């Protein structure tokens, strides 16, 4: 296993617990998609996996080695982290921005050389942003910026790519384009963990899916087993239909308008708004 997470738990210092008892593993070329409502701790989990936060309990093993015992440079050679898009103050060119991904392979006093430029250009071509290499990184579109960040993480030449909501803030076409690139990367040998707000994305790219809720993985397994109507209703408090589409040869996930769904025959409890949400264990619904 490339990455093995056992009983991981995290709480902010002096603050409330974010998640606990999370266990999963990641195989070669596997794409794991983490779903879950806003503020549930998906980003925090991904930061823990990048060793940006230390776990409070449990362990993360990277290629069989305990992550907390590894130097950050060693981790950076194995794990590429693509954060959520944020503003950058200084107008670095896209090429210089992507070159920064070479940092873990360079000594403290050195700067990127010819070989690093070649690797950066290769990654730029891989994600298809050759036309904007000279542009300032704060003047490009959201989709291009996301691709630039992915290219920067790829320039690290990692084995695992962590993507924190790579499709948020993107238009429909760019969402699909990013997912396709993630798919290609997995085929070319990378393991990917990404968080997403769109259950449909799980069907588009992923082998396995985890749903985060109640401070842990509520469900974890193959996409078809995890992304179910019942699980999504419980997670997001909305009704969805999951059907197999022959047109696209995969499952698709379609939300209903609250209170107006035509699924009465399928759901005996009816589906007027939030009435069918399963109460979380030991607590009241906070929807």
């Amino acid at each position: 296993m490339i990455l093995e997470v056992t009983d991981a738990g995290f709480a902010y210092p002096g603050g409330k617990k974010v998640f606990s008892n999370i266990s999963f593993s990641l195989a070669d070329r596997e794409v794991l998609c983490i779903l879950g409502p806003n503020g549930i701790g998906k980003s925090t989990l991904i930061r823990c996996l990048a060793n940006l936060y230390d776990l409070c309990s449990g362990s993360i093993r990277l290629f069989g080695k305990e992550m907390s015992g590894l130097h950050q440079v060693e981790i950076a050679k194995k794990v590429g982290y693509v954060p959520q898009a944020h503003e950058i103050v200084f107008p670095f060119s896209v090429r210089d921005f992507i070159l920064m991904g070479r940092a873990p392979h360079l000594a403290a006093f050195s700067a990127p050389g010819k070989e690093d430029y070649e690797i950066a250009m290769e990654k730029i071509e891989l994600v298809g942003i050759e036309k904007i290499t000279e542009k300032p990184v704060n003047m490009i579109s959201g989709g291009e910026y996301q691709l630039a960040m992915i290219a920067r993480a790829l320039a690290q030449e990692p084995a695992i790519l962590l993507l924190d909501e790579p499709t948020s803030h993107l238009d429909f076409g760019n969402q699909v384009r990013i997912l396709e690139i993630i798919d290609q990367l997995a085929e070319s040998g990378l393991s990917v963990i990404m968080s997403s707000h769109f259950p449909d994305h799980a069907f588009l790219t992923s082998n396995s899916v985890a749903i985060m809720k109640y401070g842990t993985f509520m469900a974890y397994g193959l996409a078809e087993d995890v992304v179910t109507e019942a699980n999504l209703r419980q997670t997001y408090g909305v009704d969805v239909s999951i059907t197999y589409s022959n047109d696209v040869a995969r499952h698709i996930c379609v939300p209903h308008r609250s209170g107006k769904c035509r699924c009465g025959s399928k759901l005996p409890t009816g589906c007027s708004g939030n009435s069918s949400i399963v109460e979380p264990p030991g607590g009241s619904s906070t929807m």
Partner: protein
Amino acid sequence: MTTVTNRISSTYMAIRPFFKRKVISTILIYGTLPVLFVASLFLGQYDVSPSHVIDLLGAPFLNLLPEEIIHVNPSWTAAEYNIVYVIRLPRVIAAVLVGSGLALAGAAYQGLFKNPLVSPDILGVSSGAGFGAALAILLSAGAFMTQLSAFCFGILAVAITYLLSRFYRTTPTLILVLSGIIVGAFFTALISLTKYLADPYEKLPAITFWLMGSLAAVRYTDLLLVAPPILAAATILILIRWRINLLAVGDDEARALGIDTKRMSQIIILCSTLITAGAVCIAGIIGWVGLVVPHLCRMLVGPDYRKLLPVTIILGASYLLIIDDIARNLTSAEIPLGILTAIIGAPFFAYLLRKRSVGWT
């Protein structure tokens, strides 16, 4: 055939303005400093002709050669020799050292704090050094002790800022800036206190003039004292300059790229503090250089610290040389440097911002 020629000529047309601009700006940037350096030696109240200055500067090197090959006939008077070598040269070297140092420290801090509006005194080094000097003047401690006291209190102020920021466990850079404001305000109050206590006929003016900044009193001994820490710290910043880029993008991202951000910020803070404290203790408080020059350079060569830092050093030195030349030539009495850097720097900065090519958003 014509298509090939067309393509070549169109490629040439496309790169020509870029090439031309780049070469010209590089020559301007790097060529200005030596010209200013020599010019600053013959500009002044006492006239020394430019040719004599060049003869004087060349003499020590020519004297190294055997007498038979070349014999140097002094074209200058003893007074000229004194003016150039004893009074003007240390002052000009100091202007280069202080100007480039302040600009370099400002550029490094702007990257560290991911904010283009940061100047080298953000962590309180100038207020601390100012208090150190004021206290020494109040206690009639002499020139050397005044410098030493300024240097030590400057470093002490930053140390307090850093320790204070460790108390709170939130966003590190934001807390650092706030701690810097706290410590800066504290030492500014202490400066006011020493001024209030000082004898208004002798020590109060001395303190006030010191705080306004001047290079008039700089001698070689002062340079020997501050040059080693400034040069050592500057060398380190230059060596790690590519990595400052990573800090400027974001803490989390830098760490995810394998950078030890905590150690890196400690190094940058330590180096910038040594540079600024060294500069302030021989020159007094000179604002604006560390803010305006990195800006100007970012407009010229972009935000990449590999190119930005060398240009910042050169232009910082040139800027302060010009300011110092104005300070000692504009009127018969010297104008304090701190006043001029702001009077010239502020409108210039306003103009830069107006041009909308500030190099940040």
